[in-house]
């Protein structure tokens, strides 16, 4: 297979990489660009651990081809914190103990940020439906939902 040359923007920076035509964007991010924050839980769109924002839409990067990213803008978990300063969501996840093993956490954070960007004042039901595509085997979800609600409240202040 001949490799495909991709130019994209990741977290605001221009990047380029060569990928196989059948390689997922998740693999391109992790293996070509060294951005290993996005996780592979399932590889089939079920768990949301690989969530990224592609041209403004929340998607599973395991269900996108690396080749499709040419000319497009991607936001990953690596773009969430501002240098050493955590994003309020990250801070609240820590305070609420909204993670245990942590493999689901990057996906939840990226998905929760996409929600708050769209709707700064979501109610609990909206949060639970929005995050229904993100699976967590450890926390039981409640602390995650509380952390997102608390963040939203703080960010609205």
């Amino acid at each position, binding site marked *: *297979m001949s490799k*495909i040359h991709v130019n994209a923007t990741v977290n605001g920076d221009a990047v380029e990489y060569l990928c196989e*035509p*059948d390689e*997922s964007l998740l693999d391109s991010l992790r293996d070509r660009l060294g951005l290993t924050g996005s996780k592979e839980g399932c*590889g*089939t*769109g079920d768990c*949301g651990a690989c*969530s990224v924002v*592609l041209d403004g*839409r*929340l*998607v*599973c990067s*395991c*269900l*996108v*081809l690396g*080749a*499709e990213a*040419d000319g497009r803008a991607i936001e990953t978990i690596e773009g969430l914190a501002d240098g050493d300063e955590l994003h309020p969501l990250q801070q609240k996840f820590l305070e609420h103990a909204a993670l245990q093993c942590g493999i689901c956490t990057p996906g939840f954070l990226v*998905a929760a940020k*996409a*929600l708050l960007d769209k709707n700064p004042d979501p109610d609990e039901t909206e949060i639970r*439906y*929005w*995050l*229904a*595509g*993100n699976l967590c085997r450890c926390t039981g979800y409640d602390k995650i939902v509380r952390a997102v609600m608390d963040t939203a409240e703080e960010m609205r202040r």
Partner: protein
Amino acid sequence: MRYLAPASVGEAVSALAAEPGLSRILAGGTDLLVQMKTGLAEPDLIVDIKKISDLTEIRCDGSGFRIGAAVCGAQLAEHGELASAWPGVVESVNLIGSTQIQGRATPAGNLCNASPAADSVPALIAAAAVATVAGTGGTREVAVEDFVTSPGRSVLENGEIVVSLNLPARPENASDAYERFIPRTEMDIAVVGVGVSVETDSDGRITAARVGLGAVAPTPLLVEDAGRALVGTKLDDEALEKCAAAAMEACSPINDKRGTIDFRIKVAGALAKRVAARAYRRARGEQ
């Protein structure tokens, strides 16, 4: 495997027609990439249609709506005119998968995947939607109820692609609805799905009705008798019973872990009544 992202329908169709091996169209990729990952599909050529700008928009004019084949589910919900003209179609599409899936999966892909349980298809059938199909010889129109021929198979010939799904304009006093039965509240495959579209006169008498059924036969169905049972009525109990009976009569489901034959037939009748009532309330402006 080769990956192509052509800029026009003509290029896409020529590339597909020229490919001697197995080719697949990539729209949202939520079926295709899973099939590739699990070894169910090993295409030699993938044609990504999302760079064809004409296919990425919803257009609306006097004759109705044209939903490009690369339009994702989330775009339907964001389109105010479409959501108010065809709330049943939009709710059927938005039931599919998570937020992440909605950002990718397309209604056209849901149709082309040709699953008997596809959520959007019964609603599209009820809406009298028509798919525009392009091939090397030009385009043709296929009514959605004629599109799926057996589980996983459709009328698409080699080298053909769906370019849009077209919904008619809505008269006054018309609406639609879709509901499905699943054993949980979110993100599952329909055990039974029912779409109903009705038009009424200003007095609330039904002048036209269509009923689409999913997951109860090898292909999604248009049940003409179920629609006919509603026409001329103001949706009294007798009309609803007749509609349900016709829907149940049309079922030829399978037994599987998600539902037995008897259960699916019974639920098809119950849902037909419920969804018809919901479409009617919407048409009357009550909901």
